[in-house]
């Protein structure tokens, strides 16, 4: 059995295993995600209505207000946070949010290599950051 490791850049260290929730649309956490439930409520978003709680959330980048960082922190507080976040480019909002909330986070990967609903393992340390597709 071969397993594929996709390497990226570490933002926040941690290890997580879970099911992928995948989108190629950016996410605005402020106004776009309900902290209390973890549901995506962003107008017109393809994942609208779905919950990010306990998922390995894969998206290209964050958008919208910088208050989004505090929303990510809030998700952790309310126990509705994703297990990990994997991005193409984690800009300031997501970087800050992941660090404040201590949610494992990595970026600089081609997210198209991953698929919705597949099981993955995320390993992020100070030395390496990779996601492994579990088959």
């Amino acid at each position, binding site marked *: 059995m071969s397993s594929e490791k996709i390497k990226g850049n570490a933002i926040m260290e941690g290890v997580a295993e879970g099911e992928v929730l995948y989108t190629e649309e950016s996410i605005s956490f402020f106004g776009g995600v309900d*902290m209390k439930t973890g549901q995506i409520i962003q107008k017109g978003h393809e994942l609208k209505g779905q919950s990010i709680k306990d998922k390995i959330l894969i998206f290209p980048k964050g958008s919208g207000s910088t*208050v989004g960082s*505090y929303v990510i922190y*809030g998700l952790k507080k309310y126990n509705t946070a994703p297990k990990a976040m994997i991005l193409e480019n984690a800009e*300031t909002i997501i970087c800050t949010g992941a*660090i404040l909330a201590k949610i494992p986070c990595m970026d600089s990967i081609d997210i198209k290599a991953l698929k919705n609903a597949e099981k993955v393992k995320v390993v992020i340390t100070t030395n390496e950051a990779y996601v492994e597709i579990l088959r």
Partner: protein
Amino acid sequence: MFLSKEEEKILNGEYGEVKQLAMKLLVKLGEKFKAEKLISISSVQIAGISYKTIGDPGLEFIESLVNSGAKVCVPAFMNPAGMDLDNWKELGIKEEFAEKQKRIVEALKKAGVIPASTCTPYLCGLLPAKDEHIAWSESSAVIFANSVIGALTNREGGPSALASAIIGKTPYYGFHIKENRKPKLKVEFLGKIKDECDMYALAYCIAKQSKDIPYIKGVNVHDSDLLKGFGATLAAYNSLAIFHMENITPEAKEFCNGNIDFQDKIKIDEKDLEKAKKEMGEEGEEADVIMIGCPHTSAKEIAMINEMIGERKLRKEMWIFTSKPIKVLIERSNIAKELERKNVRIIADTCPVVAPIEDLGIKCVVTNSGKATFYLPSACKAKVIFMPIREVIERFAI
């Protein structure tokens, strides 16, 4: 990114969790922006203070950070809160909102942040010099500091500014490096600036056309209040953090004597300004309230408004937003009493953007602020009529 031995120790947690978290944030953001190192800063200005904008998650984060022992190590001012911290009841602010707003301010005070609660710290005790490295976050203060003063700052987020205040450093990238402050877009203004709305309409025109750093020619306005409002408008409509204005801003000369290759050039005339003004505000004769002071007014502006109204009074209430120190100064003069008689209220610590205007029954606002024309419709769901202060007073004075 290069870290000194001391910085490494902080990152490894030898000075506790709070400093570790702050350092981690600075280092990660620094790596993101390819900063080579951290540099010392002399002051910090922290945005994200209003309970209306940061809500419960912001409040909880700030409180937990401060309860874990966060302390600032350089002078740090805070941005406007969601209400006048002393006179919130008179504004109609709800008890629950006030309670949570006070918790945010109290937590930051405990960490050593100076509660000036203003977007214009440079008008009341926090004035950097040219080439001084600072870490500020409020967009209008950042663009004023970079452009009008010539200080060096990126546009920080609330959390990164707080982290900088705890560590006393910021990643060395962006506008801390002279090279990155060079103008890229040449703007030629053909016409005359008659009043503040012309000035802010010019900012709107530039903001709508390009995100490049502008070098603006043809503006002959030597007035720090107008430059304050001009920068605020540019920053609101386009996220710009710096501009250069020929013969006016300190770095303009440094750059125009060099061989800057202006790839892009635009021309703006008075017709463009008139068109811009129609886009910035809506038509209308009446409004619920007049709002002045976005960014916060200087003492000079308040004195001028008092002069302009003269012996008359306004038939609609005017709210002037300013910082607490300026309000105290005005109250010490006779101006505050005179303005009260003229139906003008001076409100400290908050502003039209971050106060819960939508909960106060306000649906239509008259303002002379370019920045407020951007935020009032989106952040406060209010209709905006955009007029220069002189016309506002002529329309509403009796």
